[in-house]
């Protein structure tokens, strides 16, 4: 199955570079481009991509705002992969909280960019679990109310699955760990995402960190 991608960046040369890298893969295809966050929604409506590569800093509407617009305005919404120049960009965490499924550095080697797009499109495992933990560590303040996730009434099994998700395990790996069928794990993941009101694994894991359910240290 072909994965369709929309590339959003205010710099045309970044767009053309990413397009060339993605189109060189037989199973990936760039179906649209946007030069600003404001142009994203119509392009995505028209092209129905699986994944949007979203630049963070753009002149008029930035990547966080555009991510929010996409995820609130569309159903089903595409997966959003945030693309940034620097790791220590405060916006990245904001983008993840806004619903992006992961982030990529612009200096990431092309093979990893491709792998990240496939991971996010498949949504079977968490992209860069260590980086997400590090970001949460940097942004969850010491004084934060660690309320836990009791309010969401996750079952024992769902809690186990969430902990393994945070460690970056894929559905198949979780199935192996818990000695259960992959289909069962998929059901558990779907249920716990629904209970947490999370769009995908990334949001669920961020919630797990922020609530203190999965300790950061």
């Amino acid at each position, binding site marked *: 199955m072909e994965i369709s991608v929309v590339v959003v960046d205010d*710099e045309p*040369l*970044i767009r*053309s*570079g*990413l*397009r*060339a*890298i993605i189109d*060189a893969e037989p199973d990936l295809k760039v179906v649209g481009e946007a030069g600003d966050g404001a142009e994203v929604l119509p392009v995505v409506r028209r092209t129905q991509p699986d994944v949007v590569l979203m630049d963070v800093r753009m*002149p*008029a509407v930035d990547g966080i705002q555009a991510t929010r617009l996409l995820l609130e305005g569309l159903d089903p919404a595409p997966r959003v992969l945030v693309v940034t*120049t*620097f790791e220590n960009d405060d916006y990245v965490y904001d983008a993840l909280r806004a619903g992006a499924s992961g982030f990529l550095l*612009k*200096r990431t*080697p*092309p093979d990893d960019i491709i792998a990240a797009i496939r991971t996010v499109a498949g949504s079977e495992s968490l992209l860069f679990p260590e980086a997400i933990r590090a970001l949460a560590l940097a942004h969850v303040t010491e004084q934060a109310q660690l309320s836990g996730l009791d309010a969401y009434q996750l079952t024992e099994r769902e809690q186990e699955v969430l902990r393994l998700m945070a460690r970056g395990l894929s559905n198949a790996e979780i199935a192996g760990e818990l000695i259960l069928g992959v289909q069962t794990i998929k059901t558990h993941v779907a249920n716990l995402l629904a209970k947490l009101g999370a769009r995908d694994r990334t949001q669920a894991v961020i919630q797990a960190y922020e609530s203190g359910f999965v300790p950061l240290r």
Partner: protein
Amino acid sequence: MANVLVRGSTYLRWVYLLLGAALVLAFILVDSGLVSLIDDLQLPGVLTAILVVLVVAAPPLVLGTLPAVREVEGIAVESLLGVRFEERPLGPSRTWAQRRRTTAWFCVHLTAGGLVGILSTAVFGFGAVLLAAPFRSPGPRELVPGLTYQVTGRWTDFWMPLATIVAIAALFLLSAGIGALLAYAAPRLLGPTPAERIELLERRTATLAERNRLARELHDSVGHALSLVTIQAAAARRVLATDPAFAETALAAMETSARAALADLDHVLGLLRDDRRPGSQTAPQATLGNLTRLVEATRAGGITVGVRRTGDLEQLPAAVSREAYRIIQEGLTNAIRHAGRPAGELTVDLVINLDKSGLLLELTNPVSAGAADHSGGGRGLAGIRERVAVLRGTVEAGLVADRWRLAVRLPVAVTTKA
């Protein structure tokens, strides 16, 4: 009381006082030679007295005014008296007021040091003799010529070592007391005055703002260019065989952005090296008083600059005047960069107005249609916003009809005449 004697700071302060004593000793050596020379002149008594006072007072007074003395005393006071100055490290005297205050401090140091030095010599000198007293054969002994003590050979002789120990304790208590007084006085005499403190703070703020600006500049320009080069290179390598035309375009793009990044890097590194930027200690910075030169330099580039000035700009506090100059400088640079037309066709109007409501700086210039989208907020504008925020002013920037307008208002407390 007792814990004063076990505290390390007590002995460090004593060392500081002994440094003063050593200096006093050096001065006395010089003075004694000179005084005997004056004595040989056989002048009338009053004249001799005046000369002696001059000879004794002159060396410390002259030495105190040397700029480096403030620096040296600063180091000694910080490390031995345990004082933390607001200006760190304490620099050499820059003004005559600082020289005067340093001289006063120097004299205080010498006086206190001399006193403690004499007492220390006496306590340790006599103490050594008295400590040994009970172990000597009975009889009268001479401490110094004309001062004798009696060794009886009985246990009561032990009052002498006991007295010595008490005297040593008293010496260190006294020296700790004097040291504490000096530590209290040091920031007041040697440290910066309130006015100097404000200046320091201002400079620190400026350095910080500048550093942020440079970081952002590197982030924006060099980071962006390198990302672009990385991605284009990766893409070119992948399609080299299948799409050579793309690869060629990519190479050209890489060349252009790498070159632009180098130019930006050159610029930013230039700013870092340039000691005339805020944060440097010495050279004065341009203020609105230097505006004419800036305008002339801009005009020399072929740009028409119209200037309208109202209000007595001389009254502006130096900090505001400096910032205003730099805001105008950045505003002009932005206008040139983003106007999208050759310098010969560019007109910039500059209005500077100072009244009770504050200082208004307004720059307007026509922009070509294609250039307008650049004007959303360049690096220069961010720099201006930062400066203005420090001074609690406001910035308006945007298109008014077909003209780009930058207006900066800075609050200024000015008592305008009538």
